[in-house]
C-alpha cells in the first residue's frame, strides 16, 4: 500500500502506512552525524535519504537502520529527487552541481555530472518523462537537459520586486508535464513559468513570508504550498469558464494547522500532508475527493508519538522518560488527600528528578524501559543494548552498569 516517509531534524526517519489508518509503521532512530534534508522512494520500496553530511544513505526498512552511505562528492547535499521510474537519483549539492546516480540492486552507483553552475542547488524536480530536471538556486532556477547534461534555460526570479536587493531563494520547484515550472520562493510567491520561452505565466503571492515547500498532485491539477507562517495553501487548476478549455491556477483554500515553518508538504490523491518545525504531521483530507464519509474524512494531527516514550515502575512510583540521547528518571509526587476524578489534589511531596542518564555514542536511543520494582533501567540503540541497576539509598541514587 501507499506509504509516507518523513525525516525529522534529529535524523530519525518514520514510515507511515496509509492503508492501515496512517499507522506509524517503522521508526529508524536518528544519528548524531546524520541530518536528512531530502528523502525519496526509488526502485519500488527502497528509501533513500540525503543530507548536509554529504552522504546518500539507503535505509534498511526491515532492520530499521541506515544501511549504506555513499559520498555524493559535492559537499553538503541540499536536495534529492528520483525519476518517475525510480531508476535514477539526482542530487543537488552545495557546490552547484547536479549529479545523477543509478539505483542498482544493493546500492547506488554514480553515473554522471550535469552542468555545474555557481550557487547551491536547493531543490530539484524531474520532468515526468525524465528528459529534464529543474534545479532551484538562490535568485534563479535552471532547467537541465538530462541526456546532454546542458543547462537549456536559466530564469532569474528576483525581477520585478521592489526588494530586489535582498536575495530571493527558490525553496521548492516542480516541473509539470505541460512544460510549466512552478517555483516557490522566499518572497512568498508561487510562480508559474513557461520554461521553454522563459516567461512568467502567473504569479501568486500567497504569503508575506517565505513559501518553503510545494507538492503537486499526480493529476497536476492541484498544488499544496507550505509557508513560514505555518499556513499551507492549496492552488487548483480551474477552468476560467465553466466547461471551457482555458484553465488557470487559482489559490483556493488556506489552512492554518501549524504554528511554525511548514518545511515539507506532500500531496496524496485524497489529502494534503504537511509537516513543520512544530514537529506535527497534519493530514488534511480533501472532502471532494472522498466518496463516503468516514474515518478517512477526518482531519488528523499527529501530535502524540505512536510509540511509548515513557515507561513506568508501578511499585516504586518511578517514571522513565526517553529523549533522543538521554534518559530521565523521576519520582512521582504524592498526596494524602483523596478526591474524585478530574479534581486537582494538593501535593505534599513534589515530584523529584532522580537521575539523568546520557547514552554513549552518536546513535540515538531507540527504546527504553524501567522494571516495575524500579531497580532496573535499560535502553537500546540500533547497535547496542545497555542495562543499569538503580541503587536507592535514602536521598542518594547511584547507577551501576551491568
Amino acid at each position, binding site marked *: 500500500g501507499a506509504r509516507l516517509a518523513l525525516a525529522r531534524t534529529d535524523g530519525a526517519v518514520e514510515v507511515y502506512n496509509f492503508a492501515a489508518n496512517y499507522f506509524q509503521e517503522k521508526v529508524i532512530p536518528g544519528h548524531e552525524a546524520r541530518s536528512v534534508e531530502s528523502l525519496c522512494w526509488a526502485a519500488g520500496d527502497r528509501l533513500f535519504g540525503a543530507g548536509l553530511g554529504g552522504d546518500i544513505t539507503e535505509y534498511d526498512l526491515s532492520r530499521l537502520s541506515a544501511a549504506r552511505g555513499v559520498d555524493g562528492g559535492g559537499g553538503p547535499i541540499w536536495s534529492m529527487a528520483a525519476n518517475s521510474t525510480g531508476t535514477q537519483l539526482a542530487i543537488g549539492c552545495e557546490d552547484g552541481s547536479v549529479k545523477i546516480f543509478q539505483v542498482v540492486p544493493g546500492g547506488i552507483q554514480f553515473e554522471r555530472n550535469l552542468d555545474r553552475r555557481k550557487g547551491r542547488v536547493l531543490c530539484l524536480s524531474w520532468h515526468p518523462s525524465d528528459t529534464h530536471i529543474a534545479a532551484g538556486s538562490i535568485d534563479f532556477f535552471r532547467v537541465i537537459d538530462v541526456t546532454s547534461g546542458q543547462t537549456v534555460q536559466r530564469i532569474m526570479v528576483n525581477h520585478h520586486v521592489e526588494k530586489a536587493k535582498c536575495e530571493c531563494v527558490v525553496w521548492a520547484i516542480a516541473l509539470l508535464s505541460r512544460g510549466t515550472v512552478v517555483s516557490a520562493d522566499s518572497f*512568498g510567491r508561487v510562480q508559474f513559468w513557461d520554461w521553454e520561452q522563459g516567461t512568467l505565466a502567473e504569479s*501568486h*503571492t*500567497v*504569503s*508575506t513570508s517565505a513559501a518553503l515547500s510545494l507538492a503537486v498532485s499526480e493529476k497536476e491539477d492541484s498544488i499544496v504550498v507550505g509557508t513560514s507562517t505555518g499556513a499551507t495553501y492549496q492552488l*487548483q487548476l*480551474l*477552468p*476560467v*469558464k*465553466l*466547461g471551457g478549455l482555458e484553465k488557470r491556477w*487559482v*489559490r*483556493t*483554500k*488556506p489552512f492554518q494547522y501549524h504554528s511554525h515553518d511548514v518545511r515539507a508538504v506532500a500531496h496524496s490523491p485524497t489529502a494534503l500532508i504537511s509537516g513543520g518545525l512544530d514537529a506535527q504531521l497534519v493530514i488534511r483530507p480533501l*472532502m*471532494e475527493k472522498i466518496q463516503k464519509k468516514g474515518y478517512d474524512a477526518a482531519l488528523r494531527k499527529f501530535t502524540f508519538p505512536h510509540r511509548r516514550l515513557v515507561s513506568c515502575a508501578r511499585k516504586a512510583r518511578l517514571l522513565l522518560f526517553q529523549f533522543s540521547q538521554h534518559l530521565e528518571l523521576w519520582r512521582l509526587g504524592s498526596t494524602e488527600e483523596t478526591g474524585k476524578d478530574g479534581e486537582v489534589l494538593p501535593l505534599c511531596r513534589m515530584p523529584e528528578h532522580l537521575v539523568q542518564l546520557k547514552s554513549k555514542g552518536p546513535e540515538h536511543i531507540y527504546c527504553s524501559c524501567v522494571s516495575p520494582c524500579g531497580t532496573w533501567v535499560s535502553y537500546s540503540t540500533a547497535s547496542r543494548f545497555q542495562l543499569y541497576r538503580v541503587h536507592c539509598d535514602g536521598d542518594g541514587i547511584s547507577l551501576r552498569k551491568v
Partner: protein
Amino acid sequence: MVSPGALRVVRCGGSALRGARAVFSADCKYLLCASGDFVKVYSVSTEETLRLMGGHADLVTGIQLNPHNHMQLYSSSLDGTIKLWDFMDGIPIKTFTVGCELLALYTPAGAEDSVFVVIPKKGERDTFQLVSVKLTKGAGQDLEAKELSVVLDGVGASMKHIAFGREGAYVVSVKDVNLQVYFFKRKLLNRFSLSTVKTKGGDNHFSCVVCHPTEDCIATGHADGKIRLWRNFHHKKEYTYSTLHWHHDIVMDLAFSMEGTRLLSGGVESVLVQWHNESSCQKDFLPRLGSPIEYISMSSDGALCCTLHTDNRITIINSNLRFSRSIQGLIKSRDVKTGLVVDPRTKALVLNGEPGHLQFYSLQSDQQLFSLDIVQRQYIHQAGLQQSDLVKVAFSAQGTWLATVEESEEVTDPELQLKLWFYHEETQSFQLNTRINTPHDNHITDMCFRDMDELGGDSLILVTTGRDCVFKVWVMVEDTDPEAQQSVSWSCDFVGSYHNYQATNCCFSEDGSLLAVSFEETVTVWDSLTWDLKCTFCHPPGNIRNICFGRLTCSKYLIGATDYGFLCCWNLLTCALEWSAHLNVVVLQPDPLSEHIAAVSWLSKESSLFVFKPNEPRPIYIQRNLCKEKILLAAFIPRDQPEMISSEKYLWLRKSQLFFLTDTQELMTLSTKSLEERLTPSSKQLAVEESLPVTPFSVLLGKHRRQQAQEDIDLGKPVVRKKQEQASPAVRELLHTPAHVLPSASFLCTIFINSLLISKENKSAEEVADEVEMESEKAEDDSDEEDVTEMEQEDTSHMELLGETTCKLSKSQEKELRKIRKTDYSWISAF
C-alpha cells in the same frame, strides 16, 4: 402664474438613496440613483442634480440600463410597476404593470425581451422568489406584464442577494448560509451551504453576491467580513472557494471591475478596499469615506466607480482609487438633536451631519454647502462606544456667532461642552472663540441668543437652560490676558432658577427686553436688563414643551405648548391667558418675518399643520394629514423675494417657506405651484450632443480647432476670430447635415468660400464691419425667431422631408445660407 390649487407637500431632499445600486450612463457622464419615489440623474462632472424623474407611487427598488439601448433605463418600484425611461429627456416611455411588489430588478444582457424581478411569494410571508417578466411589445404607453415564470424560490429580498453571471448564463442567489446557482441552458440548480456554526467570531451568513464579468467566478460577502471567491460551482462536489479577509465587520457590497481583475469591497468601516487578481496580499485602500458604504457600482468603461453611503452621500472614485468628488444632499445623521436651524448668513439649513459635524445644507441647490467639525475628535465606528455628539446649535441674528453644545452619550454623567464660534470674514468660516467645559451640571435643554442691531454689540447675550434647574446667561467680556489671540471671550454673567424646577426652554421677545424661561409646568418671564422675575404663567397639568413670543403686531403675546395637549396664548400686558386650544403640538415654529406661527400636531398616526396668529384663536390655515411619517422638526426659511400669492389662504407663505423634517429624515416643504412649474427650465433640456461619447476623431478635431483658436489669439486678430465664429455655423451646418440630403458640391462650394471671404475682407475695413455686424445681428435675431417656428414645423414633417428633398436644402439650412448671403451683400453695398 399661480394656480389656486391646494398646497402640495413636496419632498425636497434627504430621501434615502439606498433603494438600489446607482447606475452610470454608458458614457459615464450621468449617474442615476433611486431616491425615494424618484430616480435622480446627476451630472458626474458637476455633481448637479440634472433631473428628477417621478412617476412611481412608491419606493423605487431597482434601476438598470436597458441592455439593448443605453439611453433607456428600467426602474422598478414597490407600487408594482416597471417603467422604461428615456433618461436624457426625462420622459417615461412605457409602464409595465406587474401587479405585485417588486423588490429588485435585473436586466442581464442575455435575456431578449424579459427582465427579472424579485417578488414576494403568494401566501407566504417573508419568502421571495425571482421571476422573469416578459415585457410585451404593445403600442400603448401603459402595458400589462403578467407573463411571469419563476426562476428561483426562496431568494433574499435585497438586490444584493442575487447576481447574474457572465453573459447571463446563470443566476446566483444567496440567503442566510446557502448559495444557489441556476444554469439557464442546462436547467441545473446547484445548492451549496456553509456551516451555521459561529466559531472564533466567524459568521458565514451571506451579505452580498456579485459575479465575475468574464470568468465563471462568484464573489460573496459575509457577515464576519470575509469575501469568498467561488469557482467550479457546476460540480456539486468539486466546487472550491478561496477567502479574502480584511473587513472586521459585515461586507456591505462588492463590485468587480469590467475586466474582472479588480474587486472592490466596502462595509461599515467606511473604507473601500480594492483587491487585485483575487489575491489576498495585493490590496489597496481608500479610507475615511465618512460613513458606512452601502452600495458599490462600476461604470461600464471602468473609469469610475461610485459608492452609496448610509447617510445618503454618493462618492465618485477614480479607477486608480482616488477620491474624485462627492454628491451630498442632506446628510442623514443618526439623530437630529440640534433641530432645524437657519444660518442667517447663507440661508442654509443647519443640522447634525456626520457624527460630530454640523452640516450646512443649501435648499436651493439640494447640496451640502459645507460641514463644520464641531467635536473635533476622530469618530470610531464601534458598537457600544460612547462618542460625543452635537446636541444644540444657535446662531446670533446676523450669523456672526455660533454657539454649539456637545455631550457624550452617557446618560448619568454627561460630559458637556459649550463652544462659541466667531465667523471669520477672511477665511469665510467659523473659528472657535471660547470653549466652556461643563457649562451646566446636567443636560442642556435649550439655548438662544439675544442680538439687537439697535443696541450694538453689547446686547449680545446667550442664555442656556439646563436640567440642573438653572438657566445661565453668558456675555462677552474683554480678554485681559495679553497673550490671548482674540480680544473677546465669553463668560457667565447670571444664573437664575425657579423653585428648583428643571429649566426646559428659553426664548427672547422680539425687542430683546424679555426672556421667557419655562421650568417644567411654569413659564417665567424675566427682564433682560436687571434679571428680575417679572411674572409667571402656568397651565397645569403638563410640562411646557415649547414656548415662543409673538412677533411684530403680536409681540405682546407669549405662546406655549404643553405635553398634556394644550396650546396656550398669554397676554404679557394683562398677564392673563388670552386663549387656549386643545392640541397635541409637537412642533411650534414662529415665522421670523411675520406674525404667523406654525404648529404641527401628531395625533392618531398623522401629522397636521395649523398656522395661526397669536391675536386670534382661530387658525388661518389647517392641513390635516400632512404626511404619513411623524414630523419631528420644522423651520421657516425666509424667501429671497416675497412670492406673489393670489390666494388669501396661503398669504402666510409669502415671505417665508416652511420646511419639515420627518422621522425618516426626509425634508419636505409646502408648495403652491404645480409639479411642472417646480422644475427649472435648465434641467428640462440636456444637449444631445453633449451626451454623445467622445470619439478619438472628435477629440482630434476639437484639439485642432482649439489650437487654431489659440493661434489666432496669439496673432492678435480678434476680428478674424469673431468672423470665424460667425462663419462657423455655415461650416458646422455643412458638416452636420447627413450626406444624402446635402446639395451638390458645386452649389455648396461658393457658399463655403464666400463665408471664408467675408472674414478676410472685413479685417481691412473694421468700421464698416461693425455696422454690418449690427445689421447682421439684427437679421440673425429675426431669422432665429423664424427658425424656432419653422423648426417646429420641420419636426412634424420630418419624415416626409427626408423622402422628398434629396437635393433640396432643409429649411433651416436654407435660412442659414440665406443669412450668410445677406451679410455678403450688405458688405458689398457698404463698400
